[in-house]
């Protein structure tokens, strides 16, 4: 059977799904037009402290800069920004958008953690079987609304805390084509180095500027002898920085405090480096 194809039919496509998607993207661009710098915090490996780095950096930037700082917690399934930044309360919906919630030092936060009961996982409404078919699409759609529907206002910097893995930075690159850049967070181990390297390569392939490497849990203060020593073997931070020709922006000691980052000279140095780089 032979018949005309989609593009050969000149009549209106009433659903215009492509146009609807384009309008969604345009909304994100317009919403972020008042944000000076949009920075992704990424890592291929989980458990390296991306959220800790994001929260600590946001607080330091809020202290150093006169403009507002925002944190978008893109780790929908394991949100931690709310707890680390002390953001709580109901999410207010108005006709022109959604108001972010103010956390410590006035950092503006949007996170799935604001939508969930404590300890409850993120559950999606939809058919129970074969959720893998649509779950990823829904997660990206939710991230799009966090970007495009939240009234971020005039921000100096919006930090986007990504979940582990390389897929999320690719999705973000599609949603935010003019991302200022990305920070890659690693721990010193060789396993982390390889994992983070993969994610950095995906970021570069999508045209994202790698601002630098942050090595977290670089050292550990022994509570018995008071000596600072290594927590892991390896020097992933230095090696990744050399491999990609970017600065090793910070080597952060392991923190035992669990209820949110406190000011440290190392995180303050990281914030200084970021501010200088973006000026």
């Amino acid at each position, binding site marked *: 059977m032979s018949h005309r194809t989609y593009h050969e039919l000149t009549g209106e496509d009433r659903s215009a799904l492509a146009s609807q998607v384009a309008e969604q993207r345009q909304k994100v661009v317009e919403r972020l037009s008042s944000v000076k710098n949009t920075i992704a915090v990424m890592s291929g490996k989980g458990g390296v402290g991306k959220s800790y780095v994001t929260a600590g950096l946001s607080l330091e930037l809020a202290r150093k800069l006169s403009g507002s700082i925002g944190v978008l917690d893109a780790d929908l399934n394991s949100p931690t920004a709310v707890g680390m930044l002390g953001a709580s309360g109901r999410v207010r919906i108005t006709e022109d958008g959604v108001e972010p919630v103010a956390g410590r030092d006035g950092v503006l936060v949007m996170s799935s953690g604001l939508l*969930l009961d404590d300890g409850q996982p993120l559950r999606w409404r939809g058919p129970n079987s074969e959720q893998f078919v649509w779950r990823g699409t829904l997660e990206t759609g939710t991230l799009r609304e966090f970007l495009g529907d939240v009234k971020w206002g005039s921000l100096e910097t919006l930090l986007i805390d990504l979940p582990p893995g390389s897929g999320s930075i690719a999705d973000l690159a599609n949603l935010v084509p003019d991302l200022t850049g990305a920070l890659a967070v690693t721990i010193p181990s060789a396993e982390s180095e390889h994992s983070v390297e993969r994610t950095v390569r995906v970021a570069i392939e999508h045209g994202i500027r790698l601002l630098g490497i942050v090595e977290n849990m670089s050292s550990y203060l022994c509570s018995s002898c008071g000596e600072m020593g290594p927590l892991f073997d390896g020097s992933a931070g230095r090696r990744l920085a050399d491999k990609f020709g970017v600065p090793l922006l910070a080597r952060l000691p392991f923190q035992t405090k669990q209820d949110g980052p406190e000011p440290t000279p190392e995180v303050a140095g990281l914030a200084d480096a970021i501010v200088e780089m973006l000026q």
Partner: protein
Amino acid sequence: MKFLCVDCDEQMVFEDRTVPGDGTFAASFECPQCHRRIAMLANPMESQLVNSLGVKIGGRTLGPEPFELTRESVAGREDAFEDEVGDVATRRVTWSSESHARLERVPKFVRGMVKKIYSDYATEKGISEITPAVMDTARSELGLEGM
């Protein structure tokens, strides 16, 4: 997405969209030449995939509400949202007791949004009170079956 009447070599025209409330949706089309009608029936998984994109088959009559997809999709805290949109809509028109009862049957997480859609419709049409008849007409005109 376009539909072609192969016999007539004519593009079929979108006619109606139905959301029966069982997780599926249907869209019907008609050939402008031979008037043959067909219906595209999507199963729950296919319907969910389209919904997950945040788009509407048949096109949108009204623009998306803030966090429309998030509010429809995340099964989270009951009181997570403070909906000023619903409050603004309420001030514009009154609701008859029957229509209010019908609105009460709409799931709480989308009730504010649904309320605003009907209120905007009534405001646009110069209708001061929303009755079940107004809701039925609005549903038909706006393609809001299932609301």
